[in-house]
């Protein structure tokens, strides 16, 4: 089952609660970009765009777009006070050195161990990893936002990833339309089941073992 627009906003709103004042945060393309809208402005969060901006602000007013001020997804943004522009080595130096508190991205599969697969479907889609490996491996906290199952209804939360990994043991939190799940010591702990889903529905649509406490 597909995640509708409302579900996407619900997921993004839950993800936003993981962001604390003063944090440095990178939002991946797609659903993760919705998260920014749920982070209070007075938190002074510095959003990082891996093409070379620290301190992106919201989409500009219609007609005020600057073709040379865009995020890594290619969409126009603004710059907050304290923002800086730099080349891609600096953008990734900030990531690699471990200064990102939270990275929020999508996934094709996540395993019990927090392994992440999100960049290649062998024989089908080979988009390339972009900055996903750097971000997933080096951010202090990695939050995955995704549909609980794929378009064929198959589980995306699995015992072991069958797709090539983006990074091993990197995911800390999985948020889907059905549940919020923490990855703790190679175990998946369900923190919350999201209405209207039931515990049974979450368990049956998940291949990996889930813990409830």
């Amino acid at each position, binding site marked *: 089952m597909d995640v509708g627009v409302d579900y996407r906003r619900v997921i993004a709103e839950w993800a936003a609660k993981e962001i604390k004042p003063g944090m440095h945060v990178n939002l991946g393309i797609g659903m993760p970009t919705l998260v920014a809208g749920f982070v209070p402005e007075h938190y002074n969060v510095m959003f990082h765009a891996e093409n070379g901006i620290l301190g992106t602000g919201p989409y500009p007013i219609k007609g005020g777009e600057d073709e*040379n001020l865009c995020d890594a997804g290619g969409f126009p943004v603004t710059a907050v006070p304290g923002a800086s522009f730099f*080349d891609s080595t600096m953008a990734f130096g900030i990531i690699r050195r471990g200064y990102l508190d939270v990275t929020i991205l999508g996934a094709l599969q996540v395993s019990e161990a927090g392994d992440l697969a999100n960049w290649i479907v062998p024989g089908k889609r080979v*988009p390339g990893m972009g900055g996903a490996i*750097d971000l997933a491996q080096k951010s202090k906290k990695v939050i995955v936002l995704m549909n609980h199952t794929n378009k064929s209804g198959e589980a995306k939360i699995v015992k072991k990833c069958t797709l090539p990994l983006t990074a091993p043991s990197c995911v800390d939190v999985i948020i889907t339309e059905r549940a919020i799940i923490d990855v703790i010591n190679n175990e998946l702990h369900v923190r919350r089941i999201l209405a209207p889903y039931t515990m049974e529905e979450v368990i049956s649509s998940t291949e990996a073992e889930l813990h409830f406490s």
Partner: protein
Amino acid sequence: MNHVRQISKVVSLKEALSHIKRGTSLMYGGFGGIGSPPSIIEALLQMKVSQLDLIGNDAGFPNIGIGRLISEGRARSLLTSHIGSNPNAGRLMTENKLDVTFFPQGTLAEKIRAGGMGLGGILVDVGLGTMAEEGREKVEIQNKTYLIEEALTAEVAIVYAKQADEYGNLVFDKSARNFNPLVAMAADVTIVEAEQIVPNGELDPENIVTPGVFVDYIVQSEGVNWQWMWE
């Protein structure tokens, strides 16, 4: 008068692009098309140059940035970090018409910088435990494993700058900077397309991102001639 005119690197597009031929290895600036030099790409399309070995962050979009050359089948190989935004690149790859090699984005950026700085390469742990480490030589430092990633250089780099002075000092425009200062340093011949060309001394020495010594030719930009996705 005993006065030698300051050498200007400003030339015509035609003169600058005479350095790009069939089979040239070509680095390009740009990230999703933003910061790719539009007038140079247009001229390369018209020149019918082909079999290029491209090196750059991504494959652009089908009709944006370097994607325009890739979509037309002008490249035979591509070292990059992703091609997801240009389905033509994926199709050509699947048809074995485009040889694509992927690197994690930050690693690719550092490999190009290393080439520009005259280093042999870098040691990086990004990609360990993934396909990105396949075929890579490794080294242990203080009980930590790193991949040895060699420096990248190219015959020609094409660069988009906001301003260039006649010596070739460059400043860039916001997120259009991205890979531009990196590829500008890493090629034998660096061709810059500048929105504005100014006399030497006009740019504040403090704010220059790329020193002119790295630049060989400067051409006047005719502006972006593609439609952005968000437009």
